[in-house]
């Protein structure tokens, strides 16, 4: 007889079938998987506001005059805005905004300074990514005041005749993009999809192997000719289905309960969901190779869930967090997934923009699953 192959489709199917049957018999867990998203939807009917500063701004500068530079300087000094790049066309500005690279685009039109000095009330267009209203509202609110003070300082002596009061010398126009009415549910509900998936997917698979070990069935499984990859992957597959059930529930609630728009492509969203679910299941299954018992498995899941909740930009606006927290947040799949869901649902992002946020999630899944396969012990030692 030949030695067992490194990966057998048949053994893999055997595990998948077994897991599906066991999942079907475990009514309590199944109920929880459906119940948790519903409870969360109800609980998170409110949002948490904070006051993030240093929001990245792109500037589209078509004017060469001194006044536009003064106003830019004043915005910087307000600490709400940080000019990270200069764009040279409206298209470029749109791309930066939809990718989430910047929160605002400030648009100084041609001859802005000249028109200002003539008293022609030139238009100053500020476009904001208002997907997450909590992170932009304060900055936008401050804008009028900032401009007013800058102009008051600048327009002295012979220019004092220009009206510097709000809405005076400059015609400030703010376009809140993607979520113009600043409805927090628009932001929360799609985000909730990521939170619920993180919470349930990680935990349910974290228990998968520890349960086999605690029930003594692991000894039986290990005495059969099976390979780590078959077991781990086989245990992940059925839960992808559960994940999609949760996603369907949340999408239905988003549509019918909260009237959240769906600007982008549903198929693309479901693809993003697939990558994200896989990443979380991989995390869970890897936890379950580390945990000694089911309690430890649950603890590890929470250890992962809490930073995901706090540092991903779900609880607090991502840009309002200190740099170290943002760096940590960038590692977590939820952070990127939030950008994917919000991007697709609220901004109508396409494949190109979505991919930019999806590959870190895929990378995370691959790395974590590799660790899991390495950690999975073929013996009872």
């Amino acid at each position, binding site marked *: 007889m030949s030695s067992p192959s490194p990966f057998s489709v048949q*053994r893999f199917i055997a595990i998948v079938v*077994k897991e599906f049957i066991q999942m079907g018999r475990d009514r309590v867990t199944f109920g929880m998987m459906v119940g948790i998203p519903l409870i969360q939807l109800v609980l998170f009917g409110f949002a948490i506001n904070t006051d993030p500063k240093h929001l990245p701004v792109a500037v589209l500068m078509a004017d060469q005059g001194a006044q536009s530079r003064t106003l830019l300087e004043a915005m910087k000094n307000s600490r709400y805005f940080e000019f990270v790049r200069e764009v040279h066309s409206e298209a470029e500005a749109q791309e930066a905004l939809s990718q989430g690279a910047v929160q605002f685009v400030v648009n100084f039109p041609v001859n802005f300074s000249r028109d200002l000095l003539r008293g022609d009330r030139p238009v100053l267009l500020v476009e904001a990514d208002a997907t997450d209203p909590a992170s932009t509202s304060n900055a936008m609110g401050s804008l009028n005041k900032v401009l007013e003070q800058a102009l008051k300082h600048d327009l002295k002596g012979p220019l004092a005749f220009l009206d510097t009061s709000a809405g005076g010398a400059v015609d400030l126009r703010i376009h809140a993009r993607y979520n113009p009415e600043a409805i927090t549910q628009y932001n929360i509900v799609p985000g909730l999809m990521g939170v619920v998936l993180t919470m349930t997917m990680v935990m349910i698979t974290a228990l998968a192997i520890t349960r086999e070990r605690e029930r003594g069935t692991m000894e039986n499984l290990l005495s059969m000719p099976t390979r780590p990859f078959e077991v781990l992957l086989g245990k992940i597959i059925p839960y992808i289905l559960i994940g999609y059930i949760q996603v369907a529930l949340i999408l239905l609630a988003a549509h019918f309960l909260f009237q959240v728009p769906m600007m982008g492509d549903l198929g693309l969203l479901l693809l993003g969901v697939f990558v994200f679910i896989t990443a979380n299941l991989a995390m869970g299954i890897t936890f379950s190779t580390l945990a000694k018992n089911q309690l430890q498995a649950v603890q590890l899941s929470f250890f992962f869930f809490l930073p995901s909740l706090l540092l991903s930009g779900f609880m607090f606006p991502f840009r309002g967090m200190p740099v170290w927290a943002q760096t940590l947040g960038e590692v977590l799949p939820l952070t990127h997934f939030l950008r994917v869901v919000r991007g697709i649902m609220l901004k109508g992002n396409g494949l190109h923009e979505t991919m930019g946020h999806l590959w870190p999630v895929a990378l995370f899944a691959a790395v974590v699953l590799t660790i899991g396969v390495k950690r999975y012990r073929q013996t009872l030692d």
Partner: protein
Amino acid sequence: MNAMNNHLVIDVKDMTKQFGGRRVVDHIGLQVRPGEIYGFLGPNGSGKTTFIRMLCGLLKADEGSGTCLGYDVIRDSEEIKLQVGYMTQRFSFWEDLSIAENLDFVARMYGIKKRREVVSQSIERLGLTGRQRQLAGQLSGGWKQRLALAACLIHNPKLLLLDEPTAGVDPKARRDFWEQIHQLAAEGLTFLITTHYMDEAERCDRLAYIAYGRLLANGTVAEVIDSAHLTTWSVKGPDLQKLTLELRHKPGVQHAVAFGSMLHVSGGDADELERSIAPYRKSPYEWTLIRPGLEDVFIHLMGQSQDNFAS
């Protein structure tokens, strides 16, 4: 290499396993021939399960070498697993799967051809045709044991490792079970079975006795008994309890143990034993010199090894 080139199904030596610095299995060697039913005996915690787990690659041996079914017992555990059926001490099939689902899972895992047919035949042989959809967790001890054995046999293994297969099973089921074992052995299967029951030990072709991780005796029942060089007297009479207490501390009496209505008094030195019991060899007691049974020998071996460990 395969089993054909090697006469022995199991041929290992110096198998050793430590847990936290304690040698749980201590240089045990074992030779098992094809078609043999080999009994593996020893008190709880003596290392039987650990030894079996090393044989089928579930635990890494710290030391030891040899072959199992012709494969290297240390390196080739994946090959060994394909041809070994291992029945764990504790029922380890999935209690939330039905009988049929458990068998089907095992059949898939081993890549059995004509899987459905094999599974339904197995269910039929089990006598569970009507109950195949019952969950394994709802079965009684005896039925669980039957299911486990059937599952271990699905892939036509050459060697079966059965770890206390009859613990907690009623006498009738135990008898049926052994009948099946003998039948399978006659068909050429080889068995290594751990047990605590003396009647089961006596049904084995050969056996090994281990305590504290060490092999104390092995061979056929007769060989094991002879090698102990034990003299045993059987006593009948009233108030044997009192006699037991009095005899226990006499020189040459290694143990005095009740067997039903009789008392077995044994010792390694026949003459000294005879001198010590002389005062009691009168009415109302009735003394007979008997051939020691397996249990006398095991109690004796246990006592000896305890002394060794104490010193």
